[in-house]
């Protein structure tokens, strides 16, 4: 198992290298730059701006300088505890942002990532909390009106995009009833609407997967055996069937977590949440080269790590895979 993990970690280095190189050069070929503004600056001012940010160096030099800044140079993971500082912990320097000159990309990530993670955590909680019971209910009451209700909910949740659901929730609960702020991220109360919006999409998927998984297990022989031995229905469902029925949900959670983390941009905009998803998308519009690279690298790292976790869990759950 350790060899498997080690090999996968080594494999991720060239993947990361390709991502960094591709992003670095692609964004330079896009028209417009960080200083392209409605009121054009004079050539003298532009020269000085480019010099200040070393943008008039040859491109290969900018690239190699940047790669060197990215290379981990030390290993003090303890430093992460006091504020997620990747520079103090590993010597990884994402450099200052172009758009926000008084902040470094390291700082922006350290500020914003916890917010996105918190939003993701709550949303995942909402997704599981709504999705699992609905799925179980639908499977147990198969082909009854309860099943149809739960399945319609799931289908609606999958079909209605977050940018429709979010504003509707705001209109009803914030503007009409006045229970919540329309947007913002101040008190615990501000977590409710965004988590519901982002969580409901995943709740829908989880409900469908749970129903499907559970139905498959319920039709198997050992369930009939359990019933024949006189086990109560609740015991059959929760003790025997649910464990196996949830397997598809578990393997769905890996990509779901990645999706929640990287896909929170819309939610963060609708609710004006100071998270990293918004910075990620806006940095591309602002041609904020360093922030684009920093966030891309971070998200790529997340996806690589989560995929690895899912693979490890699958190998662990399924002994057949261990020898492949």
């Amino acid at each position, binding site marked *: 198992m350790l060899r498997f993990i080690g090999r996968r970690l080594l494999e991720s280095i060239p993947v990361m290298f390709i991502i960094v190189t591709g992003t670095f050069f692609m964004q330079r070929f*896009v028209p417009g730059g960080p200083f392209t503004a409605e009121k054009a600056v004079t050539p003298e001012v532009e020269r*000085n701006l480019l010099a200040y940010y070393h943008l008039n160096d040859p491109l290969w030099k900018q690239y190699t300088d940047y790669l060197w800044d990215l290379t981990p140079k030390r290993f003090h993971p303890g430093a992460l505890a006091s504020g997620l500082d990747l520079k103090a912990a590993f010597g990884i320097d994402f450099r200052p942002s172009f758009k926000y000159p008084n902040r470094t990309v390291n700082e922006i990530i350290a500020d914003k990532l916890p917010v996105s993670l918190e939003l993701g955590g709550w949303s995942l909680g909402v997704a599981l909390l709504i999705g699992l019971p609905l799925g179980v209910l639908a499977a147990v009451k198969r082909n009854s009106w309860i099943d149809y209700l739960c399945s319609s909910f799931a289908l609606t949740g999958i079909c209605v995009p977050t940018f429709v659901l979010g*504003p509707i929730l705001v209109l009803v609960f914030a503007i009409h009833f006045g229970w919540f702020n329309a947007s913002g991220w101040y008190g615990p109360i501000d977590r409710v609407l965004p988590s519901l919006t982002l969580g409901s999409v995943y709740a829908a998927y989880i409900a469908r997967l749970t129903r499907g998984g559970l139905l498959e297990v319920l039709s198997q022989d050992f369930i009939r055996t359990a019933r024949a031995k006189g086990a109560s229905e609740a015991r059959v469902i929760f003790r025997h069937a649910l464990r196996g029925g949830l397997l598809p949900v578990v393997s769905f959670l890996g990509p779901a977590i990645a999706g929640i983390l990287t896909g929170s941009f819309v939610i963060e905009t609708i609710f004006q949440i100071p998270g990293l998803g918004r910075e990620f998308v806006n940095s591309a519009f602002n041609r904020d080269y360093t922030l684009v690279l920093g966030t891309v690298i971070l998200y790529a790292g997340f996806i690589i790590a989560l995929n690895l976790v899912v693979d490890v869990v699958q190998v662990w759950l399924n002994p057949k895979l261990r020898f492949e």
Partner: protein
Amino acid sequence: MILRRSLRAAWLGAAVGASLLAAGCGRKAGTAAGGKGGGGEQVLRMGNGAEPQDLDPQAVEGIPELNIIQALFDSLVEPDPHDLHPVPGLAETWEVSPDGLVYTFHLRPNLRWSNGDPLTSDDFIQSYKRILTPSLGSDYANYFYNYVQGAKDYYEGKVADFSRVGVRAPDPRTLVITLSHPTPFLLEMIACHFVWDPLPIKVVAKFGPLGHKGSAWTRAGNLVASGPFMLKEWIPNKRVVVVRNPNYWDAGRVKLDRIEFYPTDDLGVEEHMFRTGQIDRTYDFDRSKVEFYRQHHPDELKLEPWLGSYYYVFNVHRAPFTDVRVRRALSLAIDREQIVKAIMRGGETPAYSVDPPNDSGYTAQAQLQGDLAEARRLLAEAGYPGGRGFPPIHLLYNQNQGYHRSVAEAIQAMWRKNLGIELTLSNQEWKVYLDSLNGHNFQLGRAGWIADYPDPDVFLEIFETGNVNNDGEWSNPEYDRLLHQAMNARTQAERYAIYQRMDRILVDQCPVMPIFYYTKVYALRPTVKGWWPTLLDEHPYKYVYLQH
């Protein structure tokens, strides 16, 4: 194992979620975001567009930053709250030499920074030295060096000795600025543009080299202010809070205790925040909601003239726009009334010249005049009778405001119907669009210009040969000569008379096709008082208060 753990986590989440919901039901919105403030506290909450880049007046360029910087930094003269004409600020009095080149400002006695340090004329000198430091790469350095004697040479490194630049401080309360040419609108510019504000140089130097932007001096706790407010809190993408500055020279007049600026980069979200009472003023407004507000909340909707023009630029080096008759024909063949009434709906007025009216007492007399018959005649004269043989033309525009496309489609239909010519529309992402426009890589382009300070010069100078913002590369020696002559005019009347001649040339030559003059559309809580419509949407905060 893993299943049980994830289930347990889910139940835990359920319990916390339920308690959150319960808490939510019992609480009224608005309070979490600062709310109305307890005990009659005067708190103004502003929607402020994008997240500010920085709060260093020498390192920023946008309106969101300007809105905050106005609260934090004072200048020699301030804009009057009614019409923005310059009134005494940090300077109590000033004299101008007869040739209009030397301005001597006398600072108020006992001026202090918010940390108690004395504010002297040397702070101005050091700040001006900083903005001219090439390594700082200040976006607006040209607003300074275009006017001050010797400043451009210093900025370009031709002169290393800063004493050659036309700014002097003979004593701590006197500042002398010598200009390279008379600049009749200097005071308006100082009042409204932050490049002239003095910085707390000692504080700036404490946090990094003066010639570098991006040091920590602008963060809450570090930033030292000279204006009516000082920085209390700045959490990026969340809010910026400023509180009353007790060391401000006019602190007695300031009525607000606090101003909170909220980044609001989505029109719909911002309007929701206004409706739930989270903000008192929106930064911008969705045009599709204007009619609803006009009917149901007329006291909250503000439609105010804004000193700006919306127009299409002809690239005069690309056929068929090399021919002035074509430019004129196209300009005459659109129905501007229809565009402002049916599409814009925000009280905009049709534009028949580039200069918006009533700009510091100036209104262009030259107006685009002529009917459809004349447009068709001009087009025929240019060799395209009835639009026959007219080459394909493309409009470059951007789509981050909903109405650009609608206006373009209306004009496309009008030209097709009135002149028989075809226009294709090409929509580009904001920065790509700007890059095409600045690189003159277009045939016909959508553009707009909004003034930084109230003076007609703002609109006229961009048509000078070689101006970086002259995207259509139109050039006219007589126009350039008049612009230069206007700068040296002895009186305002003489200068405006020259501007009239320049506007005449613009109307005759049509380097651009004016479409409408902007209005500023926003929502404002009726409880906000001491707030007057001004042409730049600037509302000096020290006069603002809330009346519940």
